């Protein structure tokens, strides 16, 4: 019973997906599964919160060290489930409008969500790989969902090939870690890796072994970092991102750019912190924050600069999601620092939740603006949109302001906390680059607002008019509530994130000692 309770946030979407498949199989006509799917996700989020409130059971031995169910994973579970719920609502509106409403989409979302939760709860390389693949397989299929479209086919194949390449790299990295440590669980690997320097001087053979071990563990780290960089769309591993996002159905794009990204970042931070630990104690593999700093700078800068030149709002949002990955990386880089690291890690979780709701909202507003047959919404399509449709225009405005980072929306505080954490960790140059990048990004976000409020459509051009869909409206309202709520009382939400990681970091040393015998 304890086990079922612990796993309930993951079990709800898993079992729910099976039920959805049955519903779909016995249903006379397509459609109507969006609401059950959304409810399923919101139930999973509520279950994660309930487990948080009740206190995570301290006896997690039933999990045999494969999964770490703690407040960090519950926070991320709730983020993922919230994002997945909003995405299924968006799908309910989008797929129906574009005559794609086939029922298999909804079990795919639910399975991917279960995989994403498994990914962020993983504390073993096996579970990390299992979660990554379960999440990705569903998303590949959702990307290629528009069957007749060459673009959708191309996007999904590109995403699939690079995604499975990343998965293979990840698998090889874990094989190397298993080779040098004999463990596949994070705690066991970390124990062997970190114990190495202590008995190194004993004899020459042992010293050589230690050197080999640290070299191979660095190689393994590189493979894992590259695999994760592919998944989060960090430069220089971002090539697939704009094409895959643009070719995918827009509701899939919302899911990919928020939920998949949040899950990949959550797992990334966990595996790096648990296996390679903080910069001081990790021996020769200590270089990962410094290495990631370059990746972060490249990711922010390239994402923003290319976003400036886009004419399609959907593609602009794809590049903006690359830029945002760069900001999140800043927090990951600062997280291993002694003392200030906890707040940095908390700022990562805060950012992931903030980005999930802001981006979901922005993509939702974009979906709302696109009728059937007129989907790829360019800047020009939106000319005068907000004057003709004030409410829909206001929704778009709110989310774009949040993505830009204008107070009192949540986007401002997300950036503020991450940049403050970077400064606290002593990376002044990185923080400066982030601020400059953030200023640059205002140009292309506000460009949409200028078009919507101040420009008249070209004579004879097709006018963008909002589609009518209760699903999309509810999704946008849900996202808007979080954007405003988190923006008005950010400290309270940051405290929650701090509580989420506080427990995890406090438990980490004891897990490292106790985890050794938990290895199967």
């Amino acid at each position, binding site marked *: 019973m304890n086990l079922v309770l612990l796993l309930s946030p993951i079990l709800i979407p898993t079992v729910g997906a099976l039920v959805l498949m049955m519903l779909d199989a016995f249903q006379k006509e397509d459609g109507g599964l969006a609401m059950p799917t959304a409810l399923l996700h919101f139930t999973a989020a509520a279950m994660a919160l309930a487990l948080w409130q009740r206190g995570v059971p301290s006896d997690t031995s039933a999990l045999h060290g494969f999964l770490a169910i703690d407040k960090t994973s519950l926070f991320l579970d709730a983020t993922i489930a919230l994002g997945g719920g909003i995405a299924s609502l968006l799908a309910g509106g989008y797929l129906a409008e574009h005559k794609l409403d086939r029922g298999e989409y909804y079990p795919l979302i639910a399975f991917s969500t279960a995989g994403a939760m498994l990914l962020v709860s993983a504390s073993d390389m096996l579970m990390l790989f299992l979660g990554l693949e379960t999440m990705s*397989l569903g998303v590949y299929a959702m990307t290629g969902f528009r069957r007749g479209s*060459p673009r959708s086919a191309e996007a999904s*194949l590109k995403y699939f*090939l690079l995604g*499975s390449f990343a998965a293979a790299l990840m698998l*090889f990295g874990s*094989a190397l870690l298993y080779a040098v440590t004999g463990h596949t669980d994070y705690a066991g690997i970390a124990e062997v890796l970190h114990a190495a320097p202590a008995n190194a001087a004993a004899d020459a053979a042992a010293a050589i072994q230690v050197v080999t071990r640290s070299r191979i563990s660095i190689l393994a780290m590189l493979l894992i970092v590259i695999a994760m960089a592919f998944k989060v769309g960090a430069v220089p591993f971002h090539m697939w991102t704009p094409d895959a996002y643009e070719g995918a159905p827009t509701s899939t794009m919302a899911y990919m750019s928020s939920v998949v990204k949040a899950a990949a970042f959550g797992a990334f931070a966990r595996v790096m912190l648990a296996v390679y630990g903080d910069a001081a104690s990790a021996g020769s593999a200590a270089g990962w924050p410094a290495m990631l700093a370059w990746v972060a700078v490249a990711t922010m800068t390239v994402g923003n600069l290319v976003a400036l030149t886009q004419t399609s709002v959907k593609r602009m949002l794809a590049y903006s999601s690359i830029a945002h990955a760069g900001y999140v990386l800043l927090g990951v880089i600062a997280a291993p620092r002694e003392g200030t690291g906890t707040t940095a890690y908390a700022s990562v979780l805060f950012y992931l939740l903030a980005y999930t709701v802001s981006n979901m909202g922005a993509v939702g507003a974009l979906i709302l603006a696109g009728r059937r047959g007129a989907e790829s919404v360019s800047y020009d399509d939106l000319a005068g949109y907000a004057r003709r449709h004030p409410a829909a225009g206001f929704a778009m405005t709110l989310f774009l302001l949040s993505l830009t980072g204008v107070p009192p929306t949540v986007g401002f505080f997300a950036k503020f906390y991450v940049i403050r954490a970077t400064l606290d960790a002593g990376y002044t140059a990185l923080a400066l680059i982030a601020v400059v990048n953030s200023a640059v990004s205002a140009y292309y976000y506000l460009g949409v607002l200028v078009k919507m409020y101040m420009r008249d459509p070209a004579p004879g051009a097709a006018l963008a008019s909002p589609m009518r869909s209760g699903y999309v409206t509810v999704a946008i309202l849900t996202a808007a509530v979080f954007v405003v709520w988190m923006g008005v009382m950010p400290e309270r939400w940051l405290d929650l994130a701090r509580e989420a990681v506080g427990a995890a970091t406090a438990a980490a040393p004891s897990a490292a000692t106790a985890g050794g015998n938990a290895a199967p």
Partner: protein
Amino acid sequence: MTLAGCLTLAAALFSLGVYGLLTRRQAVAVLVSVELMANAANLCFVAFSRFRGDVTGQALAVFALALTVAEVAVGLALVILLYRAHGDTRVDLASEMKQ
């Protein structure tokens, strides 16, 4: 077969996979290359599992095999999708979205 032999084979397979991924243009060939890489990792797991006398690695390899099979199933479906859309399965032909 010695451990060194297994590892050399694994490294060779992995490198072959990366080479194929970078040079092949047929979607199916790229898919095969990716699978070579994944199986190199599996071989590594099994070899070290035997070397260490610990079954964890083999268990992981079995899971990884099942997952790669699922991956191939999805991958081939996507290749068919590409073939229906373009009438060809060369990945470099698919460039609708080039800027």
